[in-house]
């Protein structure tokens, strides 16, 4: 963030097509997205392009964003819940420069949110699009290395091995140990990976009013969850799915219903738990919520709701 708390400024570049990708590529990707929306949870192959950043930095998400982005959109980018991390800043600046779109850090103001590893705490609304960056799209890959075979398994709903994995967790740890990228069944049909979001966020995917799009650049796959679609986290009757809880509220905004990051504050091992969603935390503090370790008002500067054109 800049000193005044606004999202960083970026000068539009004139040498590129709108949102970097050429129009044919964007059309191709949009067709893949439409197909993905028509078959919720199904992975659609697409011709992933070389992007001006390495794989693993969100190239799949960026191509999806570039293809659905319009001049009137307002873009928010988060990485691990925060708007001000390197990856988020870079991607936001990339689109500010190549598409000259408005950006924001406020979840409720964004028409398009690209995310790595989180779903915002603020409830998404109809008309919003959430784009996930996906490293490995195939939920069956851990057991079956052959793409031809995993495709067949999806086609025939042969999903027994997904529960094998959960079974192994319980047998080994006494509980389902998987806490990130927890597999879901979309619309009662396809098993999908929600990307490495904490399982805390899984319930937010269910019946969400927003459009959820998933882009995997290296693996060249797009999948989607249309608005108000059932998304169920896999579990056993006697070991039902549950989410993480914390003993203490957010140290800054006292929220008890948000995902908390553990932060080490000095080299003596002192730690605090704060909201991973920096926008949510900031807005709560702006609204007067104070956590037990919150600095005096004003010290942290204004937060949230910054925009830049």
């Amino acid at each position, binding site marked *: 963030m800049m000193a005044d708390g606004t999202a960083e400024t970026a000068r539009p570049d004139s040498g590129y097509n709108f949102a970097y990708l050429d129009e044919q590529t964007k059309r191709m990707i949009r067709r893949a997205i439409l197909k993905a929306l028509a078959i919720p949870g199904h992975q659609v192959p697409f011709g992933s392009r070389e992007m001006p950043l390495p794989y693993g930095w969100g190239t799949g998400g960026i191509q999806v964003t570039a293809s659905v982005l319009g001049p009137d959109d307002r873009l928010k980018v988060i990485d691990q819940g925060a708007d001000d991390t390197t990856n988020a800043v870079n991607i936001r600046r990339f689109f500010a420069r190549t598409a000259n779109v408005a950006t924001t850090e406020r979840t409720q103001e964004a028409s398009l949110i690209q995310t790595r590893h989180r779903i915002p705490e603020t409830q998404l609304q109809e008309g919003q699009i959430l784009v996930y960056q996906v490293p490995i799209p195939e939920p069956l890959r851990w*057991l079956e290395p052959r793409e031809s075979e995993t495709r*067949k398994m999806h086609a*025939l709903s*042969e*999903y027994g*091995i997904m529960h094998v*994995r959960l079974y*192994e967790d319980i047998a*080994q740890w006494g509980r389902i140990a998987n806490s990130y990228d927890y597999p879901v069944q979309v619309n009662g049909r396809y098993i999908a990976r929600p990307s490495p979001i904490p399982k805390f966020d899984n319930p937010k995917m269910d019946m969400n009013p927003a459009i959820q799009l998933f882009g995997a650049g290296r693996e060249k796959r797009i999948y989607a969850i249309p608005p108000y679609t059932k998304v169920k986290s896999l579990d056993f*009757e006697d070991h039902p799915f549950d989410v993480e809880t914390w003993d203490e509220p957010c140290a800054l905004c006292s929220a008890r219903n948000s995902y908390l990051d553990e932060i080490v504050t000095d080299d003596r091992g002192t730690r605090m738990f704060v909201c991973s969603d920096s926008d949510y935390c900031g807005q709560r503090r702006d609204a007067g919520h104070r956590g037990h370790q919150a600095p005096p008002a004003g010290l942290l500067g204004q937060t949230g709701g910054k925009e830049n054109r």
Partner: protein
Amino acid sequence: MQDGQQAPLLKAEGITHNFGALRACDDISLEVFPGEVLCIAGESGSGKTTLLKVLSGRLAPSAGRVTCRSDDGLAHDLYALDESARRQLMRSQWGIVEQNPRDGLRMGVSAGANVGERLMALGQRNYGGLRATALDWLGKVEIDGERVDDLPQTFSGGMQQRLQIARNLVTGPRLVFMDEPTGGLDVSVQARLLDLLGGLVAQLDLAAIIVTHDLAVARLLAHRLVIMRHGEIVEAGLTDQLLDDPQHAYTQLLVSSVLQA
């Protein structure tokens, strides 16, 4: 059976399969009835493994038809079914025990999960129930319950084969296909496996189609025996009759060539 009080579980008619110019199976017809153990014997290259693959829904033949009967009494033309229905049928009605346990087991997950997988695939979602069933089946195939969370990699060859059998029988199939189930095992381990198989087949009223080159295995397990050579059935019939009074020149040669079968 001949009197028609029972319909065959599986019926093959005119099965022919070519690998390029090689004819692996040539116009083979056979039937298997409920509760019946059928052995297909022959030397290497006689086409018996190819035939087993065709019969068990894993290889579409060049010509011919395989009809199978499901629990509900309906007959299905195996290769006319779409793949989804065929795999569903195979999963719920059949078991397939591979010669090499590595092909039939998931080596990377525990013994318990190996036994439970098919139940999970069929929709069982109770961990406690799955685990109890897994332990019960490990007992049936004489594997110590203590090993339920161990990987099959840590098991001996005989244990792996028994685990594979448990994994296949847990869903109560009516027909089991086995390719050289005792192949690659020490003689004493073979005996144990034969004992176990014989017992399970009788207890569960299973039908089985077993491919073997070992006529002694056929004598001990099979009600009926089919002898194959060059992709054709040279002789078929009641096991002890075929072994003690072979009619065909090749069968006579085969029977006289082995140590006491």
